[in-house]
């Protein structure tokens, strides 16, 4: 039958297999049978809040009918979002009412990883955790407790536990994602709070980022707006992403992006196309960079990257022509190579050669209240959020397990708030530099996110305690000793978020409905109660989250009512503020470096690595019969967190392995074939998607599939878990390395 053909329409790059009919009652219908609509009277309200279907916290307007969330829209009061949210944001109610959420605290009863748990009261769970932690602390010291989270508003509460214990080993997930960029920015600008003004740029060169599948609503819209105004976009990516489809695709050889960037600098210098005035006035160390790129000619880069010399020269000229309103994007997940942070530095250095700092269509320093204080004419627009003071924490007795902060080593550059999360499993297994015996995990899934799933599972087996707090029985939760159910973002209020950009902005996540499952709790409450149980009550001096918010708002003079009415606060009458838009020579008083200059040559990087300006390092390329395995995001899923959400699972339940048509032909592989993907140590089955949209030496899959927790009944075992194939390999600054895995592929 050909009817409803369009409903079978596939998402991009899935090999036409998607749209599974999950038939699970939780998605939309069962909760809202159409007939119920007739029942009078309906109470309706709209609650302004902030999305958490991914980390981006987009402002939302939650429509509540008779105490139930029926629809989520973007918050129309925020012009950067214009009432828009992505597919994941739209699917919020599907998570909220999912019967597969975890509903009660649980303690393991069977073997680790057996999935056998008993439901317990919160008090039992706290008591159990407190006792186990105390035992670890007494035997091994506070440093034997590690904490990891994805990164988010919960951290201030979650990490208070580890700080109170005296552990230095607090980790964010950043090392598996943007940390190399953060370091690139820190070492060049003295801060990582540098944003790009995509909407106003006239020429955009993107290095491996994918705004149209890794959606960040405000930024995705800004790029879309620029394109609709005629901005030219060039995309370096071994794969033909949706973004690449909207611009000029340059299928760059993996791990060679730095060669392309250095050759751009070479051309800009050679043809005197860079902004000399800018470089003179605002930067230090340009001569050392010029010397470094002197032999990085387009001809050389063409060999390295597989992109023609003419193209490289043309892109350099086009960037120069559009300067200062042209920009090279600095990347999102920056885990390509061991020295990825140097690529990010190089990108920013070439940006500065375009003079695109603090002008429309370029980069700018985030104009939060703290930054505006340094600009007298602007200081009155916003006041900083109040600190919520707590007593000083005990000083950890030992240094971190990952060497973060150690002078004279690359890890000197690693932000202390992030660390090298991939080190944890190694340390658990080896006991070096000292044992880690307890691991607290919040809304993070190391089994699927720290390279080498099997290694993480083996490490978990050696622990005395693993606690995971999540909304689902994630792969890590499933292997834990204690599982704590957090309520979803729609069921909790959180502290005020600073979401400043070209103007200051504060956003508040506000509880829209009562918890659907009465025994789930918000993070702030969980850790406050656990802390109190452990005798650390003094570190949680606020009564509740409303008290916390009041303390934040007190010095700002902003009333909580503003958030109830609008969901966010921005200063009235302030225009987007670029320091140099009116006067190209305006002093950059807000620069955060010690030298007060943009550091093309960085003393800190020199001290840490010996390479004060980025140096080209050639990396291995796949040999005969091998492919580089790369992975990325899809617009309907977030990392490894949403694959079990009914509506999103229904849209995309499985990933496939993209393989170039010619390469596939050589191996006799056709779309739909079952493949064995082999990374030496490990193998994984997968389904082939034969495509013209990828380099012949590269294979690709979307990340986050092939989950191993059987209690995620929908997502369990569907598709390829790329994380099983990618080793737990750390780069110089502790960044995970995810694009250096070579695999072989054969028909099953």
């Amino acid at each position, binding site marked *: 039958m050909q*009817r*409803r*053909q*369009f*409903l079978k*329409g596939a*998402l*991009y*790059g899935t090999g036409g297999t998607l749209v599974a009919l*999950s*038939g*699970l*009652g939780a*998605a*939309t*219908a069962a909760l*809202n*049978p*159409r*007939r119920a609509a007739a029942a009078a009277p309906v109470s309706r309200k709209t609650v302004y809040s902030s999305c958490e279907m991914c980390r981006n916290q987009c402002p939302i307007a939650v429509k509540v009918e008779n105490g139930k969330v029926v*629809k*989520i*829209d973007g918050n129309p009061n925020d012009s950067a979002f214009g009432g*828009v*949210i*992505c*597919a994941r944001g*739209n*699917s919020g109610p599907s998570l909220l009412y999912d019967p597969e959420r975890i509903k009660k605290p649980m303690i393991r009863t069977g073997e680790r990883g057996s999935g056998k748990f008993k439901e317990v009261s919160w008090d039992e769970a706290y008591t159990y955790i407190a006792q186990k932690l105390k035992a670890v602390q007494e035997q091994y010291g506070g440093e034997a407790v590690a904490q990891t989270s994805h990164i988010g508003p919960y951290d201030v509460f979650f990490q208070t536990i580890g700080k109170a214990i005296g552990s230095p080993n607090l980790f964010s997930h950043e090392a598996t994602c943007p940390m190399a960029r953060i370091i690139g920015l820190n070492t060049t600008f003295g801060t990582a709070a540098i944003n790009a003004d995509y909407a106003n740029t006239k020429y955009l060169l993107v290095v491996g980022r994918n705004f*149209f*599948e890794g*959606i960040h*609503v405000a930024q*995705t*819209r800004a790029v*879309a*707006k620029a*394109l*609709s105004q005629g901005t030219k976009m060039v995309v370096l990516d071994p794969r*033909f992403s*949706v973004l690449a*489809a*909207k611009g000029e*695709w340059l*299928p760059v050889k993996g791990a060679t992006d730095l060669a392309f960037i250095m050759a751009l600098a070479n051309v800009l210098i050679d043809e005197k196309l860079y902004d000399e005035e800018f470089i003179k006035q605002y930067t230090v160390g340009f001569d050392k960079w010029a010397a470094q790129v002197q032999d990085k000619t387009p001809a050389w880069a063409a060999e390295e990257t597989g992109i023609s010399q003419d193209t490289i020269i043309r892109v350099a000229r086009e960037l120069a022509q559009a300067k200062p309103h042209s920009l090279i994007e600095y990347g999102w997940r920056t885990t390509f190579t061991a020295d990825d942070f140097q690529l990010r530095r190089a990108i920013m250095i070439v940006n500065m050669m375009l003079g695109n700092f603090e002008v429309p269509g370029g980069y700018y320093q985030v104009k939060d209240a703290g930054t505006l204080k340094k600009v007298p004419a602007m200081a009155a627009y916003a006041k900083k959020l109040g600190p919520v003071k707590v007593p000083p924490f005990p000083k950890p007795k030992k240094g971190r397990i990952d060497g973060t902060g150690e002078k004279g080593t690359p890890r000197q550059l690693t932000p202390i708030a992030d660390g090298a999360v991939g080190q944890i499993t190694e340390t658990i297994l080896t006991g070096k530099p000292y044992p880690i015996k307890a691991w607290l995990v919040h809304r993070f899934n190391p089994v699927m996110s720290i390279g080498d799933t099997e290694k993480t599972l083996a490490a978990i087996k050696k622990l005395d305690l693993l606690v995971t707090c999540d909304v689902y029985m994630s792969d890590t939760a499933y292997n834990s000793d204690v599982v704590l159910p957090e309520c979803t973002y729609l069921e909790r209020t959180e502290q005020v978020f600073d979401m400043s950009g070209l103007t200051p902005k504060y956003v508040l996540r506000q509880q829209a409905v009562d918890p659907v499952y009465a025994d789930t709790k918000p993070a702030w409450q969980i850790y406050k109660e656990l802390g109190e149980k452990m005798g650390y009550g003094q570190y949680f001096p606020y009564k509740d989250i409303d008290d916390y918010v009041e303390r934040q708002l007190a010095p700002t003079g902003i009333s909580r009512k503003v958030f109830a009415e609008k969901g966010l606060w921005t200063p009235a009458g302030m225009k987007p503020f670029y320091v140099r838009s009116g006067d190209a020579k305006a002093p950059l008083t807000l620069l955060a470096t010690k030298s007060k200059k943009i550091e093309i040559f960085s003393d800190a990087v020199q001290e840490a690595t010996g390479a004060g300006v980025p140096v080209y390092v050639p990396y291995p390329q796949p040999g005969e019969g091998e492919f580089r395995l790369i992975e990325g995001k899809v*617009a309907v899923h977030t990392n490894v967190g949403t694959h079990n959400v*009914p*509506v*999103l699972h*229904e*849209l995309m339940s499985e990933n496939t392995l993209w393989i*170039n*048509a*010619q390469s596939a032909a050589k191996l006799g592989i056709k779309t739909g074939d079952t493949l064995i993907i082999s990374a030496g140590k490990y193998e994984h089955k997968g389904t082939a998607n034969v*495509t*013209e*949209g*990828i*380099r*012949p030496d590269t294979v690709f899959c979307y990340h986050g599939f092939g989950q191993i927790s059987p209690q995620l009944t929908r997502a369990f075992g569907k598709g390829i878990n790329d994380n099983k194939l990618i080793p737990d390999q750390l780069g110089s600054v502790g960044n995970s390395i995810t694009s250096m895995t070579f695999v072989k592929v054969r028909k099953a």
Partner: protein
Amino acid sequence: MAKHYAMVIQLKKCLGCQACTVACKFENKVPDGQYRTKSPAIGPSGTYPNVKVFFEKQACQMCQDAPCVKVCPTTASHYNKDGLVLIDSHKCVGCKYCMTACPYDARFINKNTGTADKCTFCYDTRLTKGEKPACVTTCVGGALLFGDANDPQSEVARYMATHRTEVRKAQFGTRPSVHYDYEGVK
């Protein structure tokens, strides 16, 4: 003058992100596994490295000469006062004639109601309140325009006056109100 609601889809701007797909599901309480709209990938076509792909949002085309209305034995499928093709679920007997007649495969039997279902341009829930359809409001790529084509000042009228747009399957003579601009993708 009577209204003529129309939608313009700029394919160049569509990201295939499916925000529209999900927004529609919740706005209209569409059952699991069923959809009033989707934006599937067309392609990729071409040969490495000269490849193309685009996304085509599909749903009821709001025909002004609608085969589904013609074949409906109970007048459940009808034109409302604003010229939109809607389904009166009280009259629908689930005979599926309309599903067979629709050249765009836009209809399905709603699992919960047992009656025919399809895109309504969000008539009851949004249009009558002066809001744009849910898919248009949430469109991440900014690909969707919506308004009264009979009002020359409307965004859709102005767009269609200055751009070349097409209707799908024009050969069926259904006179759709959903217009596609293929510029930049074909």
